[in-house]
């Protein structure tokens, strides 16, 4: 009904964090993972367009539980319009020393048959944590299931205000209040022999 600032899915969180570890140790089937997912973001402000990207998104999907966990190091973003801009991004806006990671963990709402090859439109509900501020979000994604591989494609928006990222008035014309994010990642099924 109404928006909940989400604090409550500790159980879910636990499961998301523990499952990959547990799975990798015991070699259960149905765990898909990557460490080279791609994240791009774009701030389209009246006076300046800022773009940056990283290809170090870590992600796990547990097909048994229909759960997922993604995270990325803030400092891994490259691009920007200048080196100074990157420095500002890390130091002033994202405070990446305090909050080195952004993450999204939760469950996929739709029931998916991971054995069925094909394209799916799914919605992932979970806790999006950026700049140390957690928000419950439902994010739409395209999911392509192949043999031993899942490809995720997703576009969504992040409001700076939702994550208490404050922008000085002076540069407000150069940074958009609404950041467009594109995520693409290919997750491979973990081999049972892999330890």
């Amino acid at each position, binding site marked *: *009904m*109404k*928006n*909940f*600032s989400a604090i*409550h*899915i500790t159980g879910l969180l636990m499961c998301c964090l523990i499952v990959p570890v547990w799975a990798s140790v015991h070699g259960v089937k149905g765990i898909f993972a990557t460490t080279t997912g791609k994240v791009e973001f774009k701030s389209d402000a009246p006076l300046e367009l800022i773009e940056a990207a990283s290809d170090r998104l870590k992600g796990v999907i547990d097909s048994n539980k229909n759960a997922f966990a993604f995270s990325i190091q803030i400092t891994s973003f490259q691009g920007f319009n200048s080196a100074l801009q990157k420095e500002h991004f890390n130091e002033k806006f994202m405070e990446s020393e305090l909050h080195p990671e952004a993450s999204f963990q939760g469950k996929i*709402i*739709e029931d998916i048959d991971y054995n069925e090859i094909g394209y799916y439109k799914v*919605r992932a*509900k979970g806790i999006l944590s950026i700049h140390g501020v957690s928000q419950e979000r*439902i994010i*739409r994604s395209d999911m392509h299931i192949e043999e031993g591989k899942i490809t995720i494609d997703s576009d969504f928006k992040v409001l700076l205000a939702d994550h208490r990222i404050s922008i000085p008035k002076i540069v407000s014309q150069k940074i958009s209040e609404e950041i467009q994010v594109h995520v693409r990642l290919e997750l491979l099924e973990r081999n049972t022999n892999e330890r």
Partner: protein
Amino acid sequence: MFAWSSWKEIPMKDRSLFGIILFSMFLPGLFGQAPHFVTHPLPYEGGRIDLLFQENRGFILAGTSRGLFSFDGRNWSVITQSDSNSTKSVSAIWQDQDNRLWVGYKSGNIDIVAGGKTETFQPEEGTPVVPITGILRDKNGILWISTYGEGVYYYQNERLYLIDTDDGLPDNDVYVIMMDEEGRVWAGTDRGIGICSLEDGKKKVEVLSTKNGLPDNIVREISRDDLGNMWIGMYDGGIARYDLSKKEFISGGSWEYGAVTSILPLKDKIWIGTENSDIVLLEDSQPYRKIEAGQFQVYDILADKEGNIWISDHLNGLRSALRTLSFVPVDERIRSVHAGTSDRIWFSTAKGVYVFHRHTGQTDTMVTNLADVVVSMYEDPYGYLWMGSIGEGVWRMNIKDRSIRHFTEASGLVNNHVVSIDGDGKYIWFATFGGISRCQASGSGQIQFEQFTRKDGLSTEYIYQVKAGENGNAWFAMDGHGISIIENNRIRQLDELKDVTVFSMADDQAGSVWYNTEGQGIGRISLGNGDKSETELGISGEQALSIASLSRQLLLVVYPDYLGILNSSSGRMIRLGEEVGINNLGEDLNVVDQDAGGMVWIGGEDALVCYAPVRESILSTPLTCITSVNIYLENIGDEDPMELPYDRNHLSFNYTGLWYQAPLGVSYQHRLKGYDIDWVDSRNDQAIYPNLSPGTYTFELRSSANGDFSNVPVSSYSFRILKPFWEQWWFFLISILAGILIAYFWIKNREKRLRITERLEKENIESQFETLKSQINPHFLFNSFNTLISIIENDQETAVEYVERLSDFFRNILVYRHQTVIPLNEELELFENFYFLQKHRYGDNLFLNNNLDPSLAGSHTIPPLTLQLLVENALKHNIISKSKPLTVDIESDGKGYLLVRNNLQKRRDEVPSTQVGLQNIINRYRLLSDMEVRIEITRTHFQVYVPLLKKE
């Protein structure tokens, strides 16, 4: 309910086309028809209202992350608030039949607020630890609580039970619960709707999901309308209605406005709040319509009891608007309005003629190059718009190709000043300042005007308005001559109004015609009895510009500065003025028309105003409520009825009249029955009555939005101030009884005292007698004289003293014998004489040791001659000789007694004791003291203890 099925009839392609047209107009400033929103302050700065609720007394409640607040139209007050111990972020509000408010928090706690007191709901099983999202009670009295994370709870017989995914609930994250008509509880989750119920005490969950035709499984909102339909708001699927009888979902069509956050299904339209496209309206069979060009999140929508819509959103905070009114901005004064077919509203200004399309909210220019201003319009069934002017006759425009033909007096029109045009499909009537014209409506080019003038029996040719009737007849409002009717080409004048100037008429579709006069108010003619008509004149005093009938009872009256909604049965009028967005409605007469749907369109100075009567019953007077009763300015809470002691008689009442559409205009009348003679006018929200005398009182309060208090509901509070205890019957009774008792005991006591005195007197007399007897006893005299003789011979001086002492002794007896007690020291002096006499007689055979503390002697009393009597007794009964001297000790025993002791050496010739002397002492002391006289006889001593009496 409107024809929902018509949705299906619009082909998809057309619908998307609609969307494009719609979108093209959603540019800022071009917005079609919007309510007039008033922005309200928030409960606290920087806050936001997640939930809106109107409680039973009428207060608007706001659930925020800091607690629950209440709004009276001007100020916020706190109901529950976060403190250091608990975070009261409100996530659910509900009120039960006992007016108790149930407030659910994100923490999982639930508060119950009643009578200004807050209790925490504490089931034995404990409360949830995840957000509460809904609270309701079903028909069987079972309380249902939904949570975001734990599923749905129900509370029955003081036990809390859980329904979650283990019981078949689609998901434990429940966004909303709503009860359907059968009493089942619908829970909206991410995986569809779980319909929970209890069958024979067993949990039952039925699931509705995309498999059952639900457009989207993520169900964020469920509402129920008056007819029992369940309205579902989804994350991606827009809205859908569940038809309970057909048991199927009917989708609201393609949706492009994102996640739905709230749905308010009213009778005339459905208000939909969205997560990032603000408010979307669904009205009749029209496509979705946004009311503003915004991209913001709506938190909640509420319809209150007086017809306001309340919206809490991300951009505007809290806003409200009167649902009945909406405005189409126009940059020039509107001179005429005509509600045409296909939801087209025609209006003219000095610049030209325009059309407003209700469907799209778009305004089109029709014509701008006419030779004069259009002041009257009529759309005929053949696709022509007739436009009348003052001085230039009429134009007829083909609406499709916009070709225009011009008709004037030269074309056969009776007069070029055409102020009103109306038609019934067959005829078109023209009211002019020179009589009446009529022509046949037709699609062909040939137009023939007929004329009705003074010659045909018209009493005046100065006509203000024509209204075409149903059977080919027409009504005319005339200058100075009331109303005339043309039936079958015959002119008939209504006799009752023949001297009145009538500006306009309005048929209420229920057998009456309203009319607006110049200077004589508004009247109504009932057409019930054939030709005979009844009139009621002067319902309202102020000069109205025009009128329109809303229903049998309600009449809309246009005044220069406001709209009046007149209730003919109560005579009450609601004023819709500046507060609700109505500023200037101009000075022109009859710039008003009513469309087929009953909406009234009014041309103003800067807007086309639409009044849409709501189908729900709404309040016409403020909700009056006494918010607190105070004694010495201290709130006493909810005690009712109340009895107060005589000294708690400073009462004050805080109250409010809730009228959210114009809170500053509310005025009050109050009276204290039993104190005030008449109503007291007030604009304060407090009445104070200091120093009320004992009696029974009723505080009565009524409020009004327009100063008219006739037939207004009255709130009251009764109380009694008790008489002070000294005016109570029981006090009288007790006082009388006490008086009688006191008198009784006093008399009793007096009798007793008298008796004691009597006895004391008797004892005194006896003692005196005894004393005198012993003193005058010849033995004593003889002994004394013998002693005297022996002294005279030896020592004459001592003899003289002896005689003096003897005479003192006798005098003292005479002086003291009448007194009950004398100071102990006087007694000792007295005794001194006696001892002197005895000492001379017995010489060294008699010793006296007075060991009394002089201070003790000064502060105590003793019956006179007591010591003498006791010593005399000792002399009388004991041997006194050289070999056996007698020693008498007088001393205090330290315990309140005076002790007189002598060594015991009884005489052989013991005179039998009569004990009269000793007994007399004992008797006297019994009357004087609680302590008894004690006599102790040991082997060696005889000792008498007499109580020492304190000097008074």
